[in-house]
C-alpha cells in the first residue's frame, strides 16, 4: 500500500540579495515526506533548515523550484488560498509559543476555528476537548502569563490541532523548555501523531527529538547532506553515530 506524499519539494532554491551579493539559503532541495511521518530537520544555524521549514509551511515562497503540499504547488497560490492553507491544512508550533497574550487558553485554541468559520459554541466545545486531551482541562480560563512554558506549549499544540490539519510544523518546539518538559512535549507530539495520523515536521537542535523521529534530514550550507531512517540512528550518550560524516 503506497502512502500519500503530503509534502514534496523539487529543486527548491532560495536566494537572498544582501546588497549586491547573492546568498543561497537553499540550493536545489528535493525531498518528500509521506503522510503520518515524524520528520526532524536538523542542522546548524545558517544551514538553511529554517528557510526550508518556512517553505514547507507556506510561510515563504521559493526563488525557484516547486513546493507541493498535498500535490498542490504553493507558489501558484494567491493570498487567500495561502491563508486557507495555513488555517486548515497546517498547524504551527513555535519555540516562543506565540500565544495571544490577551486571550485565555480556550480563546487561543478557538481562534483558528473562528478563522475557519466555525460557530462560537462549536469552537469553544472543541477547544475545551483539545485542552483536556493535552492535560490542561483545569486551565481553560488561564492566560499565557499565568502558565509555565510547558503549559503554554501544550496550549500551542492544542491550537495547532484545532482545525484537524494534515501537517504540524514545529519550529524548535522544545527550545525554551527544560529537559523534562521537553521530553513531555515530544511524547505528546508523538501521541497526537499516532492518534490523528498527522504528519509532524520539526526543525530542531534537540537530540531528544531523534528517538521520536521516523526520519532525520540533515542540512548543511543550504543542502541536504544526509537522510537517516530511525533504524540507522545510533543514539548513544553524547554522540549521534555517523552524523558527523559529510
Amino acid at each position, binding site marked *: 500500500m503506497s502512502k500519500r506524499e503530503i509534502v514534496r519539494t523539487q529543486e527548491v532554491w532560495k536566494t537572498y540579495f544582501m546588497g549586491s551579493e547573492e546568498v543561497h539559503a537553499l540550493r536545489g532541495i528535493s525531498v518528500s515526506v509521506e503522510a503520518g511521518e515524524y520528520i526532524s530537520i536538523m542542522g546548524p544555524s545558517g544551514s538553511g533548515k529554517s528557510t526550508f521549514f*518556512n517553505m514547507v509551511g507556506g*510561510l*515563504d515562497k521559493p526563488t525557484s523550484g516547486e513546493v507541493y503540499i498535498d500535490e498542490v504547488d504553493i507558489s501558484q497560490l494567491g*493570498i*487567500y488560498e495561502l*491563508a*486557507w492553507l*495555513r*488555517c*486548515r491544512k497546517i498547524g*504551527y508550533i*513555535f519555540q*516562543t509559543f*506565540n*500565544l*495571544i*497574550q490577551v486571550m485565555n487558553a480556550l480563546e487561543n485554541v478557538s*481562534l*483558528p476555528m473562528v*478563522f*475557519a468559520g466555525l460557530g462560537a459554541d462549536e469552537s469553544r466545545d472543541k477547544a475545551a476537548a483539545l485542552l483536556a486531551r493535552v492535560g490542561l482541562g483545569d486551565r481553560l480560563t488561564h492566560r499565557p502569563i499565568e502558565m509555565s512554558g510547558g503549559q503554554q506549549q501544550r496550549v500551542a499544540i492544542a*491550537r495547532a490541532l484545532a*482545525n484537524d490539519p494534515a501537517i504540524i510544523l514545529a519550529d524548535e518546539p522544545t527550545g525554551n523548555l527544560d529537559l523534562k518538559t521537553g521530553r513531555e512535549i515530544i511524547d505528546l507530539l508523538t501521541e497526537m501523531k499516532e492518534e490523528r495520523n498527522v504528519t509532524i515536521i520539526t526543525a530542531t537542535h534537540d537530540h531528544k527529538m531523534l528517538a521520536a523521529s521516523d526520519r532525520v534530514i540533515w542540512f548543511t550550507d543550504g543542502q541536504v547532506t544526509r537522510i537517516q531512517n530511525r533504524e540507522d540512528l545510533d543514539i548513544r550518550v553524547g554522540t549521534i553515530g555517523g552524523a558527523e560524516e559529510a
Partner: protein
Amino acid sequence: MNTMYMSVTERYREIGTLKCLGALDSFVVRLFLLESVFIGAVGSALGALGGFLLTLFQIGVTLEFGLIGAGQVMRTLAQTGPPAFAGGTALTVLAAIYPTIAAARMKPVDAMRVEV
C-alpha cells in the same frame, strides 16, 4: 503618530502568528485600525477635556472668574470639544494606516523574525 507606529511594530510577532492561523491581511488591517480608533477616541476625549478646562481658566484669568456663567461654559465646551475630539481621533487613525497596512502585508516569516 509615533505611538501608533510603535504599537504596530511591537505586535509584529502577534501579526505573524495571526497570519499563521489563517488571518487575511484585511483582517489584520481592520483589527489595528479599530484599535487606533479607540486609542484616538480616548486620547482625544482626554485632550479635549483638558483643552476645554484650560480655555475656561484662561477666560477666567483675562476677564474675571465670577463672570463665567453656565452659558459661557457651554459655549466654550461646544467650541473646543468636538473639533479637538474629532480631529484627534482622525489624526490617530490616519497615522495608523501606513504602518498597519505595511505590517499586514508582511510575510508571516518576516513578521516573526523581527527582534523587537
